[in-house]
């Protein structure tokens, strides 16, 4: 069956938790390595996942980061409850950011996160409702890429 789920994991993400921020993506990377995906695919998934996770830490109240792996694809879904994005097209522009000075001082908020997600995924979908939250869904094609599949 082509759409069989190989692995499904979910991680709760807490807004403003900078100490644990990034840990879910580390676990996703480990899981993908265990599934024997090639290093380049794992690296792309890691970068995209990390940017998605940190966006929730930086801007949302809380959220879920989920990983679903099928034989054909790696799918990562970020679903948060938070302020939302008023203008997605603007937010997608490289360099545009609404980050506070405090966030920028930590090296975040340069307006590169969403473009990094896009660059490292094959499909990216983003929807948002102001005052409710944001959903980001990415797909990384991995058709037959696993060395033991």
């Amino acid at each position, binding site marked *: 069956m082509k759409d069989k789920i190989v692995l499904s994991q979910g991680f709760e993400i807490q807004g403003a938790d900078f100490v644990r921020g*990034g*840990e879910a*993506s*580390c676990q996703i*990377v480990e899981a993908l390595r265990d599934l024997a995906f090639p290093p380049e695919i794992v690296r792309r998934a890691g970068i995209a996942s*990390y940017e998605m996770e940190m966006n929730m830490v930086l801007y949302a109240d809380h959220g879920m980061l989920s990983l679903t792996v099928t034989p054909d694809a790696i799918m990562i879904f970020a679903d948060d409850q938070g302020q939302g994005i008023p203008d997605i097209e603007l937010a997608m522009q490289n360099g545009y950011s609404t980050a506070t000075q405090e966030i920028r001082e930590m090296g*975040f908020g340069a307006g590169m996160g969403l473009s990094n997600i896009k660059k490292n995924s094959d499909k990216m979908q983003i929807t948002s409702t102001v005052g409710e939250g944001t959903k980001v869904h990415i797909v990384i094609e991995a058709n037959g890429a696993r060395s033991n599949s």
Partner: protein
Amino acid sequence: MKLSRIIEELGLQLRTESCDLDCEVRGCYIGDILSDVMANSAEGYIWLTIHVHPNITAVAEFKGLSGVIVVNGRVPEPETLKKAEEHKIPIFTTGLSSYEIAGRLYLMGLKRAAK
């Protein structure tokens, strides 16, 4: 270029235990904007930064960097070192600036490897 040679010639202070210091350094990137480092560094690069918080470890892990040099005499947070040891990422400190470290690396012959 071996990481161990860089440590010796630049007099870097190693702040983490149980890391591979025999690995090959393929290039260097300087950056204090994490997404920029994610976008423009590459596997095997050594990273020069002023940041001391635990997220530098995540960036190094996702990019497969060979190590992180925290410059300007800044001191990594204990949580940063703990996470770095978990992921076996060597973290160094130096009183020198990014410019001085990068200049010395370049003179040692460390050029930018293909990404």
